[in-house]
């Protein structure tokens, strides 16, 4: 009913050329499908049992549109072989496939009559978008996590408009961020002396060369620090040696401090005298050693510079022990420090400025200060020019005088109380605090009625496009094209998409899109048990992620087939990761393309990030892994376990140590569990040859027996290990490529892909298949779809009728007494 009303509006006010409407077209479900449903589904999904809230006999036989949501759910369950559940009567593969195809074709047909592009509401910049926008606008790198609150995510993505709410905490932190960022961008000639302490982590290791350090050094820590003014600063390195048993201090080490890779200090620590001093004098000895690395004076110009602390590399002939500071091997750290304190942490403190010698040029100032006033008379016009250029980029459109009035009054206020620079800083702050920067939205043409579909303006389209492909505001070229009204021309749009995909900024599709799609942002939460995994070090986590991002970006950026995400026989490793995977011949900290000889390492399923993300601190979880593959790779997520059931999955301990497989088998024997776990477990078990950190293993250490990675997938396909699982997935682009596409669509639109988007998703997959599954085909397909180019004006918020209880009243109507 609703769809038909909407269509009427579209007839009245459509601004879209070429939309053919067939509002009265009803598409019936073909008769043979009802026979299939009768034979395999209606035993449970009937009006008596209502299993899962579905009863097929109650659906409209003459029109699939009203029940499209349920039909799409049914297709999904069938595609993933989640239904009929294992143990129930199964259709033969050919009839299953025929039914699915017919169902999908019918739904595609029906939806063509009235394409619903969906609605995206007011969209707030999220944390990563804010950080990237600041980088684009001001050439300044900030730590957005430390400045802004956590965003909610939806459908696995943190750029979904619906849940990017604003509460007082958000607004306050956005204001605070505007202030801090504008000061950092301009520099502060009167900066007060401050001390900033960077804590070393396990990631700060000392056994391998670190990129960014001088050659011939080993390990250390490297921090990017923003210096507010040219001047003297002091660096203090602490915690190199401790009291008691001192690790590695029997040998002399040369500690080096660098600024932007240049050595500015070196000093000795360790050796016989130091060992004795610590041993005999204890704290006094330690204090004397610490003193050598205290308040080391450095001269640094304004802006962001890298400060490094590292050791001089020794030859293999010398004793090459690691020193207490920067202990990286977690197991070793525990041995040294006991379990109480964890590994020793050393700090790098940067204090200053201790003298102030003005502001020198920085990338931020070069980017921002597009003019320099030669005299007082030029100041006001120059300020207007500077703020105008910034506002255009920040607001993502040509700006008016009215837009600039606010920022200019801030400039004037600042100028009155201080220098020209102070004025500019205030103006920049005002622009960054404005909702015009923080919100993006689609402006409906005047007269658009609720429920009516409207075309996005060129400028709104430019913004949507650049946040999709770059997580960033559009650049000047894109804004100018849009302002000229040319972006919607299909050829221009296509050119722009290809230009943007070739730009390094599109790597955000790997870090922001794939990182979230594959759910590898939370690896830090796994906290591996270092008693069981003594080789684990914190630097493995960023390495895992870097590998995955480089890998995905290589395929996306080079416009390769997305199927290669599963199959590619190369990866990106540095020495740390190569050591972890047992790959020889990779030296040094930089990541480089490496051919992986073992087929087990091919594609996403062999990546440490994916395998660790699906494990617990002390063991693998075939259930988590199976459910992960079903949801993130196959797009057919299993239902959640029902509440109130015993979840004794894979945790039987005690007398006899059973393999995980044996424990799962016992669990599946319970019928209510087997319905889902019969589908989940075999997928997860096929990955059992990887331990919780993604290392290859032949044996289950707990049970002391060989790993058995064999089993049968829900459709009866036998799989034995990862290679077979991968082959299966490659043969089912309707699973893998479709899942990728659905996720990409969610990310592109900023709203979860819905049932009414599925005809588009299927079309995108078909079109991609015809073009070798090239990544750009998916992107251009999305960008040229009605879902991307148009929007549906939402119906006004529903006024809730029956108030269930006193605390469910809609906002603004809380009871007042």
């Amino acid at each position, binding site marked *: 009913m609703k769809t038909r009303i909407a269509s009427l509006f579209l007839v009245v006010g459509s601004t879209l050329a070429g939309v053919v409407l067939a509002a009265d077209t009803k598409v019936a479900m073909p008769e043979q499908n009802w026979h299939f449903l009768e034979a395999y589904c209606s035993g449970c999904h009937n009006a008596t049992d209502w299993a899962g809230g579905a009863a097929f006999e109650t659906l409209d036989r003459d029109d699939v549109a009203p029940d499209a949501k349920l039909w799409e759910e049914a297709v999904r369950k069938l595609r993933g072989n989640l239904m009929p559940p294992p143990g129930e009567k199964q259709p033969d593969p050919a009839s299953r496939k025929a039914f699915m195809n017919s169902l999908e074709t019918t739904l595609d047909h029906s939806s063509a009559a009235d394409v619903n592009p969906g*609605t995206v*509401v*007011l969209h707030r910049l999220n944390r990563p978008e804010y950080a990237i926008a600041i980088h684009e606008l001001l050439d300044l790198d900030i*730590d957005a*996590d*430390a400045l802004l609150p956590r965003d*909610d*995510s*939806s*459908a*696995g993505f943190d750029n979904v408009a619906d*849940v990017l709410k*604003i*509460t*007082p*905490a958000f*607004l306050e932190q956005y*204001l*605070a961020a505007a*202030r801090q960022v504008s000061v950092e961008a301009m520099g502060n000639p009167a900066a*007060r002396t401050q*001390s900033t*302490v*960077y*804590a070393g982590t396990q*990631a*700060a290791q000392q056994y391998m060369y670190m990129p960014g350090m001088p050659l011939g050094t080993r390990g250390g820590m490297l*921090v990017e620090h923003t210096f507010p003014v040219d001047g003297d600063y002091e660096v203090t390195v602490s915690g190199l040696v401790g009291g008691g048993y001192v690790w590695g201090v029997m040998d002399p080490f040369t500690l080096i401090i660098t600024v932007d890779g240049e050595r500015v200090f070196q000093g000795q620590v360790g050796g016989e005298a130091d060992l004795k001093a610590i041993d005999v004098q204890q704290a006094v000895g330690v204090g004397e050693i610490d003193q050598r690395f205290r308040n080391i004076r450095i001269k640094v110009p304004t802006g962001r510079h890298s400060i490094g602390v590292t050791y001089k590399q020794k030859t293999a002939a010398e004793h090459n022990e690691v020193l207490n500071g920067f202990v990286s091997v977690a197991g070793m750290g525990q041995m040294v420090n006991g*379990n*109480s304190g964890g590994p020793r*942490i050393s700090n790098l403190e940067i204090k200053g400025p201790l003298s102030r010698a003005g502001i020198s040029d920085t990338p931020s100032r070069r980017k921002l200060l597009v003019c320099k006033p030669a005299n007082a008379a030029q100041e006001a016009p120059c300020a207007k020019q500077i703020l105008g250029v910034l506002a255009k980029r920040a607001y993502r459109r040509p700006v008016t005088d*009215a*837009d600039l009035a606010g920022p200019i009054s*801030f400039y004037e206020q600042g100028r009155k109380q201080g220098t020209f620079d102070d004025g500019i800083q205030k103006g920049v702050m005002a622009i960054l*605090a*404005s*909702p*015009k920067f923080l919100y993006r939205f689609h402006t409906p043409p005047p007269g658009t009625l609720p429920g009516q579909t409207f075309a996005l303006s060129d400028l709104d389209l430019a913004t949507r496009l650049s946040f999709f492909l770059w997580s960033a505001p559009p650049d000047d070229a894109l804004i100018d094209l849009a302002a000229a009204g040319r972006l919607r021309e299909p050829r221009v749009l296509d050119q722009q998409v290809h230009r943007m995909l070739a730009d390094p900024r599109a790597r955000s599709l790997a870090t922001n899109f794939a990182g979230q799609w594959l759910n590898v942002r939370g690896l830090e*939460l*796994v*906290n591996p048990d270092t008693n069981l995994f003594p080789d684990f070090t914190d630097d493995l986590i960023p390495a895992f992620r870097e590998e995955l991002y480089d890998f995905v970006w290589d395929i996306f950026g080079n416009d390769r087939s997305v199927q290669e995400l599963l199959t590619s026989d190369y990866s990106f490793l540095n020495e740390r990761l190569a050591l972890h995977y047992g790959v020889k011949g990779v030296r040094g900290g930089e990541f480089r393309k490496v051919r992986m000889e073992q087929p087990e390492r091919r594609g996403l399923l062999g990546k440490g990030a994916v395998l660790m993300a699906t494990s617990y*601190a*002390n063991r693998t979880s075939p259930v*988590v892994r199976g459910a992960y593959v079903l949801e993130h790779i196959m797009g057919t997520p299993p239902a*959640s*376990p029902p*509440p109130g059931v015993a*979840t004794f999955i894979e*945790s039987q301990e005690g007398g006899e140590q059973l393999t995980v497989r044996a424990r799962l088998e016992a669990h599946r024997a319970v019928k209510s569990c087997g319905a889902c776990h019969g589908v989940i477990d075999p997928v997860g078990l096929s990955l059992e040859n990887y331990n919780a950190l993604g290392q290859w293993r032949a044996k289950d250490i707990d049970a002391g027996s060989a790993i058995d990675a064999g089993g049968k997938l829900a459709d009866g396909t036998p799989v034995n290990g990862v290679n077979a699982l991968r082959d299966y997935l490659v043969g089912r682009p309707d699973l893998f490529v479709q899942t990728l596409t659905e996720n990409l669509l969610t990310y592109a639109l900023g709203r*979860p892909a819905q049932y009414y988007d599925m005809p588009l998703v299927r079309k995108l997959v078909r079109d991609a298949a015809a073009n070798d599954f090239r990544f750009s085909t998916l992107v251009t397909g999305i960008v040229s779809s009605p879902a991307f180019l148009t929007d549906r004006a939402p*119906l006004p918020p529903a006024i809730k009728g029956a108030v269930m*209880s*006193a*605390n*469910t*009243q*809609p*906002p603004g109507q*809380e009871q007042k*007494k």
Partner: protein
Amino acid sequence: MTTFITRKHLSRRTVLQGVGAAVALPLLDAMIPAATALEKTAAAPKPRLVCVYFPHGAVMDKWTPKKQGADFDLPPIIASLAPFQKQLTVVSGLENHPAIAAPVHAVTPGTWLSCVAPRISHDPLGGTTLDQIAAQHFGQGTSLPSIEVGTEERGGEGSCDRNYGCSYGKTISFRDPSTPLPMEHNPRKLFQQLFGQGDTANERVAMLKENQSLLDLVSRDAADIKRSLGARDQALLDDYLTTVREIERRVDQIASRDLSSVQLPDAPSGIPSHFDEHMRLMYDMIALAFQANLTRVATYMIAAEVSNQPYNFIGISDAFHPLSHHANNPQKMEKLAQVQAWNTGEFAKFLKKLQDLPDGEGNMLDNSFVLFGSNMSDSNLHNHYPLPTAIVGGGMGKLKGNQHLKFADRTPIANVHLTLLDRMGVPMEKFGDSTQKFVEI
């Protein structure tokens, strides 16, 4: 002495020269001298509400006292509450029926204090929570109507759901049915929320003034935008403007207050690298906010839903969530109970801090309503009955204390919320699925 240490090397601590490089915890020690406590000027003490949530339920036979009534026994998980027994009420037999949903973890936190079944939607719609209703009534006189605090930014898989989204699983506080409030886990940001940006009193005042003009600009720009929006976006922008006005009110309130005589501790540098330190620090910040009378309402989620935090500091290397699926294995249940007992122990230290803070005629705990519990019962069964629930504090003389109450099986926990609101002077007829108020509490 514990120092603030950050896990990420990018996080930083910033202290003024002269104040010293190593600022000590706990915050309270370095805090506002009693003589300058802001609350001194207030005529009469006001109620405080703290709701402390722990995920993954409790091993119930190690939580629930055997004896009913007064002078009840304290099983291992709540043994550390012994010093507060006179002001402690353990309530048994409670259920949160509206919390029952298939993706258990993804809806459990957000329904604890609302007792409203959430809409199956990524765009959340549940119920206004207990704390926020309280904040609407007696939180308006302070610069922050409420604070929402967490320890972990995110939990493992399962705290989000593809149908319910993430909103109900990440917070226990909803300002209104559709506005979840994020739990702030970064002590530095919480500190700035409480005291403002800036390192000195003068700087803070200058920045507050500047914020007032920034907010004017923000309002004007929002009004500009509003003209080019559709109806629903206009409604969303109205929410934004409401928020702007709320901040304005807060800024005015802070600006009119003389903070110059208050000796504040330095802002924490960032997130402590150890979970236990982090939790203590967040408790300290809540106590600090109460002491400085910056807020009267706090919620605290001591660990994320589906937290996989190992408790290495008490020798338990199992991750919290998988351990909570103990399969009735006695060894695992014992370990889990130890984790839960430790959580209660930290909570007890917080109670002690409140008790040590003078407030009116008595102390802060005397004037507080503290709810401590989980919205899950047996983590192995993922159920919501019987819920581990304890009420602590004198409640300004409105709570009886020293009793273990066992209500009829499956009594709605909403009755407890309704009762607490009533005792705090917030009269309501109904809360969630409540059926009655309790005279017994």
